[in-house]
């Protein structure tokens, strides 16, 4: 009993329960083929795509901010790589660096505006979202004259960022996702920087008074979110040999949903990397795994909506349990 209540008080509890709930739902109503589901790449690839961005977004939301400009940064990263290395035929390394650089640049702008003004970050990043969409579209028209740019990456770049592996259709981004998750887990849960992030999200003013460099941490987190988004875009451009300007808008909500399902508190101060990781996994299982059940995939959005609200209610309950907890008797679920 103690073990159960201990587990339930962890921020990741609701996301794990959501994942189990979805799988049970698939078994009961969908007659899911587990063998096929486990071997399938589609949902793991998708989990990696949103998961890589969800990790820094989770950190950012723990620190009490939000970044929706990621929706423009994924295509921006892809287009930058494709324009530099595909259209201008410079070595791929310049394309990769260019994509990461544009992420750093936009992240810095977001971060600077966030710490220098009192404007809510939702609006700041909404502005950079629309702005960057325009920049990407207009830029690709200006340079290449089309909205889709082909790119042929050399073999080594494909191996590191794009190549399908296991002889199947799994993508290398999955490995990146896992590695990044471990790094982010270490930073958030094992270093002082993690404590700083929690402190900033808990009470910004007190954190500042305690000597935490609140502003540079915030800017750094914004750089991480934008750069991870452009990184994902870059990987996709190398993988699919082309980049499109469109897309990415759905990713905004999908990523936020997976972070929130993962137990991160929107107002900051609460959350964990394990939760964010499982959250992205859960979202991908609902969104892509539904193809392996008898359920019509048109219903997947309904499941996501219901799951989100249910997970949030669970999260709130568990968080209250965690915050009320005094080590004499754990709350029962």
């Amino acid at each position: 009993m103690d073990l159960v209540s201990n587990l339930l008080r962890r921020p990741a509890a609701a996301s794990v329960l959501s994942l189990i709930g979805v799988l049970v739902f698939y078994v009961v109503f969908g007659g899911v083929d587990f063998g096929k589901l486990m071997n399938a790449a589609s949902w793991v690839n998708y989990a990696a795509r949103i998961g890589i961005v969800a990790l820094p977004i989770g950190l950012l939301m723990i620190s009490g901010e939000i970044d929706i400009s990621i929706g423009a940064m994924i295509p921006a990263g892809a287009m930058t790589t494709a324009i530099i290395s595909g259209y201008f035929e410079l070595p791929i390394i310049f394309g990769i660096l260019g994509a990461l650089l544009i992420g750093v640049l936009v992240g810095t702008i977001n971060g600077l505006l966030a710490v220098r003004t009192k404007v809510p970050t939702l609006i700041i990043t909404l502005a950079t979202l629309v702005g960057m969409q325009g920049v990407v579209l207009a830029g690709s028209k200006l340079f290449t004259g089309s909205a889709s740019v082909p790119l042929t990456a050399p073999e080594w770049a494909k191996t590191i960022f794009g190549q399908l592996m296991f002889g199947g259709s799994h993508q290398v981004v999955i490995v990146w996702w896992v590695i990044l998750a471990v790094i982010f887990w270490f930073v958030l849960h094992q270093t002082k920087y993690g404590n700083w992030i929690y402190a900033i999200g808990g009470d910004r003013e007190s954190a500042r008074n305690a000597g935490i460099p609140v502003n540079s941490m915030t800017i750094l987190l914004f750089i991480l979110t934008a750069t991870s988004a452009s990184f994902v875009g870059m990987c996709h451009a190398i993988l699919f040999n082309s980049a499109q300007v469109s897309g990415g808008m759905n990713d905004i909500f999908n990523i936020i949903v997976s972070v929130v399902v993962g137990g991160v508190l929107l107002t900051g101060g609460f959350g964990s990397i394990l939760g964010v990781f499982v959250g992205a996994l859960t979202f991908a299982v609902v969104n892509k795994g539904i193809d392996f059940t008898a359920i019509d995939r048109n219903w997947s959005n309904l499941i996501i909506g219901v799951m989100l609200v249910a997970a949030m209610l669970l999260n709130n309950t568990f968080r209250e349990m965690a915050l009320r907890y005094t080590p004499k008797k754990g709350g029962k679920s």
Partner: protein
Amino acid sequence: MPKNTGNVQTMSTHSSSETKRGSLAALARRPETGSLIGFIVVFTFFSILGGSVFMGPAGWSSWLNIAAEVGIIALPVGLLMIAGEFDISVGSIVPAASMTTAMMAGNYDLPALVAICGGLGVGVLIGFVNGFLVTRTSIPSLIVTIGVMFAVMGLTLGLAVLIKGSTSVSYVPAPLAKAMLGQFINYMFNVSIFWWLGFVLIFFYILHISPIGNWIFATGGDRQSARNAGIPINKVTIGLFMASGFCAAFVGVVQVMTYQQAQVAGGQAFIFNSIMCVVIGGVLLTGGAGSIVGILLGTMTFSVVNQGVFFVSFDPNIGSIIVGILLLAAVLSNDTFRTLAFSAATKKSRG
């Protein structure tokens, strides 16, 4: 920037002829000032570059038609934001309502009035669910309405495929319904423009004249104090969510009547577009401040940029960049204006 100051001057001379001296400072403290300046700058810009076509009926109708659709939604979304809440679900209510109307009238041959009421009813119902969840749980409205948006999207798609077997329904509306809700006047101006203006008047009355307006401001300013002062904040919140559901559904119905077709997808653009109109219109995202005139101006500014780019020679995608810059300029100037407004008690204010 120099252009900006120029417009402040012009505007101040206009207003000082109407009001007393010293009104410049009062004007600068009004929440609409920034949006008015923005609108004048943008409109001047595009009327110079867009020339006679933009200034002619073609130009006016193109941006007014856009403004009417997004504007009808921006009004309640703005009120919600003044009350400190978000509504993302409008993006899914628009197609849900238009599918409902088209399906009831086109598929089941019900009278147009019943179908329209059905579509609007769906919106009001979804709004109620939003409001209920927001007031009864401690989940932030941003998350609640994202959840509801996904659920409604799934329901619309699933039911459409289940009942109709396709993701779009065509429907030829009765002449009266068409004339009321989807007619193009002079082949250019959609009748929804007048509905928009009607909604503006209604919302103006609600926010600035009726006591409900004060309740909304109080709810957004300080929820707890508002509750202690006896304001039924839960009812206000639920009512506002129902209003935004209704308005989004109204736009959905108008779309069916106008285009004679309903589609499962689409409507997503309304989410951020309506928020952008509201923010350009000077509504504080954190609640407690804003005005209907500001939202109206914000919507007009947004639509002029959105459509104006098609009348000038440069790449239409520049429009996105302009909207982004406007948005930032709007919030930054609001920051400044608000500081002015709150610190202007006795000090001499600048122009």
